[in-house]
């Protein structure tokens, strides 16, 4: 599957140029140059280069050159490759038998002979070093070194496709992306087997040479969005890319915002359905998370499972989630604000409970709240850094022991403990991990403002938050859509999820090439016989 990957890609001219530039910097030449009998000037130059790239590569112990002799013609041929990158089975089972047994004279014949799809005949010596590093095997004949062949025998260490862990769903597909870009693209292609699905490949990073695929549906996705993505990827100057989350940060519209501006997903079904909506997906080699853009704030609170449920249930769950977000950010600051500044707002019956639990606490409400918030953050961080089994113990120790003990010791009030625990619980309902981290953080500015000016302070903090969100864009499109700019049509799949029959139009803010997903009239007809 990985071997066939390059078939998927449409290389662009610019990319090639870039490749060429890179190759120029690296010394490269033909293999076996010392045995070359032709003595023209080019070859002399090549010989020098050849020695250079060979010198470089042979510094590593995993560089191999092997001679073989064809049994029929007695011709000598040489394999040059890097064994740590090459699948030996391919050499043993596919490449060697025909080359040893069958008759061949020229290098061109090899192409027909080898039962391998990715075979390339070339005379471009500059390519060699990079090809070897990409897991190709260089095949040269002893007498004619001007032309040579590459065939792909890349060994990839891949884990098998597992069920999604972060975006787990009870019902629905159970496959998640893996680290191999080929497998990931295969999963997306399988879900959208149309010729309009375009995959464009880029290589980013001077050292990591990470393959990046930009996926969109031609004719649906807005050209401007595609161009924005391409341009931003071209502009990346980082030397090493480890994961797609690097991309989220590198191509974000506002790098100084705590809000993620690209949606990451480990679900091929979610990527496919976003593509069908007219969005662009970015898949990065070595990362089990695809990126989807442009996105909006509401999308971060939609789990893909919402689509597997009846629309009434899905809408209800979305509402719960939205409430949980507001609750999670606001409840601790609200407690601090009310207890510190606005005693009038407390119902009389609650006053007894609040005062009785506050009475023993020696700290002002804000310190008490900070103490617990920091404890919760510590627990989360400790849980995340420790192995799973130890992590569970931490949860119990933290949740039960520290919580109860701090109340008994009179360091915190038990009312606040309930609020903090609830808000931590509520913050876990956010389906996208990146966003739930943001929500964790947002609580703190609100807390400080609540301490200083009470609810007025919270209002000020909220104004700043809203102002920031309104300015934010995702790939140039407004982040707060459909709330601002107001697009009533797009509410059908933002705060609510209306039934599929009313989802006949693609989101308006994406300005898709084809706004209609299906005919609405047909969707409403039901062809029951007994009616």
């Amino acid at each position: 599957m990985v071997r066939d990957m390059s078939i998927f890609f449409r290389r662009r001219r610019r990319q090639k140029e870039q490749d060429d530039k890179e190759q120029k910097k690296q010394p490269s030449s033909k293999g076996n140059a010392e045995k070359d009998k032709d003595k023209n000037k080019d070859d002399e130059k090549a010989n020098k280069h050849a020695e250079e790239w060979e010198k470089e590569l042979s510094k590593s112990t995993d560089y191999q050159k092997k001679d073989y002799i064809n049994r029929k013609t007695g011709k000598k041929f040489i394999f040059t490759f890097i064994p740590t990158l090459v699948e030996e089975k391919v050499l043993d089972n596919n490449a060697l038998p025909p080359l040893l047994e069958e008759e061949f004279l020229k290098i061109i014949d090899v192409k027909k002979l080898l039962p391998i799809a990715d075979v390339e005949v070339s005379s471009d010596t500059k390519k060699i070093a990079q090809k070897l590093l990409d897991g190709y095997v260089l095949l040269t004949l002893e007498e004619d070194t001007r032309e040579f062949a590459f065939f792909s025998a890349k060994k990839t260490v891949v884990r098998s496709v597992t069920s999604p862990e972060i975006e787990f769903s009870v019902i629905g597909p159970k496959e998640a992306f893996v680290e191999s870009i080929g497998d990931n693209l295969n999963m997306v292609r399988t879900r959208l087997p149309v010729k309009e699905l375009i995959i464009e490949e880029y290589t980013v990073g001077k050292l990591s040479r990470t393959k990046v695929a930009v996926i969109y549906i031609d004719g649906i996705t807005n050209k401007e969005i595609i161009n924005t993505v391409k341009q931003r990827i071209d502009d990346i100057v980082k030397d090493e890319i480890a994961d797609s989350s690097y991309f989220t940060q590198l191509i974000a519209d506002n790098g100084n915002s705590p809000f993620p501006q690209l949606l990451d997903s480990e679900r091929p079904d979610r990527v496919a359905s976003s593509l069908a909506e007219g969005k662009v997906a970015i898949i990065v080699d070595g990362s089990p998370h695809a990126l989807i853009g442009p996105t909006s704030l509401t999308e971060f609170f939609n789990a893909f499972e919402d689509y597997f449920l009846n629309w009434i249930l899905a809408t209800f769950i979305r509402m719960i989630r939205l409430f949980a977000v507001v609750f999670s950010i606001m409840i601790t600051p609200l407690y601090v604000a009310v207890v510190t500044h606005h005693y009038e707002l407390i119902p009389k019956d609650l006053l007894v409970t609040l005062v009785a639990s506050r009475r023993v606490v020696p700290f002002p409400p804000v310190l008490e709240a900070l103490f617990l918030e920091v404890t919760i953050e510590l627990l989360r961080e400790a849980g995340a850094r420790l192995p799973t089994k130890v992590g569970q113990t931490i949860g119990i120790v933290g949740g039960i022991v520290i919580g109860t003990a701090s109340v008994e010791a009179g360091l915190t009030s038990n009312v606040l403990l309930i609020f903090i625990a609830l808000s931590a619980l509520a913050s876990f309902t956010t389906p996208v991990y990146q966003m739930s981290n943001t929500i964790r953080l947002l609580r703190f500015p609100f807390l400080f403002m609540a301490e200083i000016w009470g609810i007025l302070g919270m209002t000020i903090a909220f104004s700043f938050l809203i102002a920031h969100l309104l300015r934010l864009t995702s790939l140039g499109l407004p982040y707060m859509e459909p709330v601002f700019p107001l697009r009533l049509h797009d509410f059908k799949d933002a705060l609510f999820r209306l039934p599929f029959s009313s989802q006949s139009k693609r989101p308006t803010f994406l300005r898709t090439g084809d706004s209609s997903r299906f005919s609405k009239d047909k969707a409403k007809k039901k062809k029951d016989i007994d009616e």
Partner: protein
Amino acid sequence: MKVTRILLTLLMCCLLLVGCNPRYERKVIDDINIATGMGIDKSGDQLKGSIMIPVFKADKSMENFLFTAKGTIMRDVAAQMQQKASQPIFSGSMDVALFEEVVAREGIVQVLDVFLRDPSVGARVHLAVVDGKAQEIFEGNYGDRGNAQYLKDLIEHNMEGGNLPLTNLHSFLFNFYQQGKDPYLPYLKQESPELVNITGIAIFKDEKVIDILHENKMFYFKLLVDKFSMGQVKVKEEHGEATVKSITSDTNMKLTKRKPYEITVQIKLKGLLTEHEGTRLEKNEVKDIEKELEKQINKTCLKLLEDFQKQKVDPIGVGHFVKTKTRNFNFEKWQTDYQDVTFKVSTNVRILEVGVVE
């Protein structure tokens, strides 16, 4: 860009200056005394104020504590109380304010001025006039939810489901400042150290109490002043006594004649029979009860209206009503005109249900 930066700095300054407002001093709930009730009594020439605060105990029970002080004006009284308190007293959570009848007969607006100037005091504070001393009412012990909560609940549930018309600081001030309408407040009496009773309605002329309406007229009074009544009334007819609980009521005034003014008050009442003397309802007895009740309401309401007329008070807001119907209305002339108004009351009672027992 430069302009935006300057504007932003200015905005930030404004925000920071808000912090200089002393209203944003910290009022942590366990470090303050939350006043829930205030009472004003007369003591010699001076006013005697008492402020009730709840004292919360570690076992989540509460007790009431009373600060008292004497003075001539309310602010002075309040300042004296602060001197006695270990923690500052805040009045933002006030539930009830009680006035001794003697104080109320001399006028209460000077006292209410304290409330008006303090934005933290809500408009839903319940005011009431007390038969006896306000301090005595606060000194009673009415259950474990606190005295203020008891008094508040007492007044509120009688407004919602009883014969007490809706009153609070807001409606009192509205009636007070509205020309051609006079305020009224509930009239409370401490029956025992554990019980307070609503014994009537204090009728104000401007800011002074001039009359106390007896509790058996409260139902009719509520019919006249309130749009909605849930009260209960007793009817006597030939088969015996019956009680009717009203579900809805609607009162309309109509100006039927000018010079001299004639005003027809139309009352529509829908109710249900809650009690009846005698086991069975005879045929047409419901009709009889309806008619009897209509007669009774007509008679009592007319009496009420004429009494108010004699006392030159207008809690129903007849003056206000006539003003809405008259161009270039002259209130000074109305003072004399009011005395010549003839009232007519016509009532329509419908009993919708008689209960499950036939």
